[in-house]
């Protein structure tokens, strides 16, 4: 419930209800008792659903997008989730597929009405997207460093995951933008105060900036992907070249020694210096590879 401008937990007198992955009995209560549309309820749990605003006889349904909680098992795929906000005259029902909605901190202060609460949650989702974009950028930088010295595909695949995440984010942020637009077009119907309108205007700007930032990161990642793939190829080529030079350096002395090891008679084989001459020839052949490499800047 709201107390002194803040959200406090009160099971008895609460007017803000949060349902995380509601079970069948909770769903029946929401649909049958609160008259929440079944499709809209399903939308609030579906990560692929777009953000939207719907007016029902006794409540307003808001579906908004927020970043999904990231865990190490996600392997650099940052997904999005939906949240359903059902605003009644006397209560606000929140439905989400996973936990992680925050009602504490500076952002959730000075809340006078349930409408303020709806806007704060939307604002928080935008800020959450911005913070995740910073994380994606940092991860991308770190992956770039790894790719510069790597010959493995896994870092490239991680970059592909990030690229995919940014597409999800762009879609979700754009969808939230459309929701804000609809909220602004229905100010009177929703009963927003001038302060709410001002707050909504600020959010629209912040959401646009967030979208542009995601777009820039997405474009950079997409345009640099080919270059990064080439770097990985090039690293492998360098390794192959080094290995080839080592093979050549070992092969030529072996050839010299092999020729003189043939089980036939050859001139000067009884000479006392023959052994040393063969060794010098072998060493000279190895040196010739090194000299060729140095001369041609291999």
């Amino acid at each position: 419930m709201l107390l002194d401008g803040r959200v406090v937990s009160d099971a008895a007198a609460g007017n803000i209800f949060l349902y995380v992955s509601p079970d069948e009995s909770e769903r029946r209560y929401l649909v049958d008792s609160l008259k929440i549309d079944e499709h809209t309820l399903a939308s609030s749990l579906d990560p692929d659903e777009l953000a939207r605003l719907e007016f029902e006889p006794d409540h307003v349904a808001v579906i908004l997008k927020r970043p999904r909680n990231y865990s190490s098992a996600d392997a650099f795929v940052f997904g999005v989730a939906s949240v359903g906000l059902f605003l009644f005259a006397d209560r606000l029902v929140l439905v989400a597929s996973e936990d992680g909605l925050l009602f504490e901190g500076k952002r959730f202060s000075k809340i006078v009405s349930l409408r303020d609460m709806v806007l704060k949650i939307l604002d928080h989702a935008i800020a959450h997207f911005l913070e995740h974009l910073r994380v994606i950028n940092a991860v991308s930088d770190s992956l770039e460093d790894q790719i510069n010295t790597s010959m493995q595909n896994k870092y490239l695949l991680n970059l592909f995951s990030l690229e995919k995440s940014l597409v999800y984010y762009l879609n979700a942020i754009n969808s939230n933008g459309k929701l804000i637009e609809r909220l602004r077009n229905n100010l009177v119907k929703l009963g927003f105060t001038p302060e709410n309108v001002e707050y909504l205007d600020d959010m629209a700007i912040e959401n646009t900036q967030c979208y542009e930032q995601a777009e820039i990161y997405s474009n950079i990642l997409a345009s640099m992907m080919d270059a990064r793939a080439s770097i990985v190829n090039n690293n492998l080529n360098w390794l192959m070249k080094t290995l080839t030079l080592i093979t050549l350096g070992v092969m030529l002395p072996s050839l010299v020694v092999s020729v003189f090891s043939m089980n036939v008679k050859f001139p000067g084989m009884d000479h006392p210096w023959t052994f040393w001459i063969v060794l010098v020839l072998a060493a000279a052949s190895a040196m010739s590879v090194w000299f060729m490499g140095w001369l041609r800047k291999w």
Partner: protein
Amino acid sequence: MSHASAMRKVTVLNSAGLHARPSLAVAQAVRRSQSKVEVRTERQRIDAGDILQLLSLGATPGTELTFTATGPDAEQVLDELVKMFTEQFGLCGEAG
């Protein structure tokens, strides 16, 4: 030239563990410092300045992490990290 080294133990208090935003905060704090900072769990030891390794650590709530720092500001950076963990990175109760 020898540098001071220091060690601190912290417990992950965030309900979602050491997830995306805390990992970024840790990596940024370490990169801002002039010290080399490592994190140890029971199973692995990683570079605390690398967000890739932090995200892959999979530290769940209640995991005990041991930070060791070597460098001119080892104590300061570890104090900053302990503060972050104690304050749950300003994300009390929040995931993601």
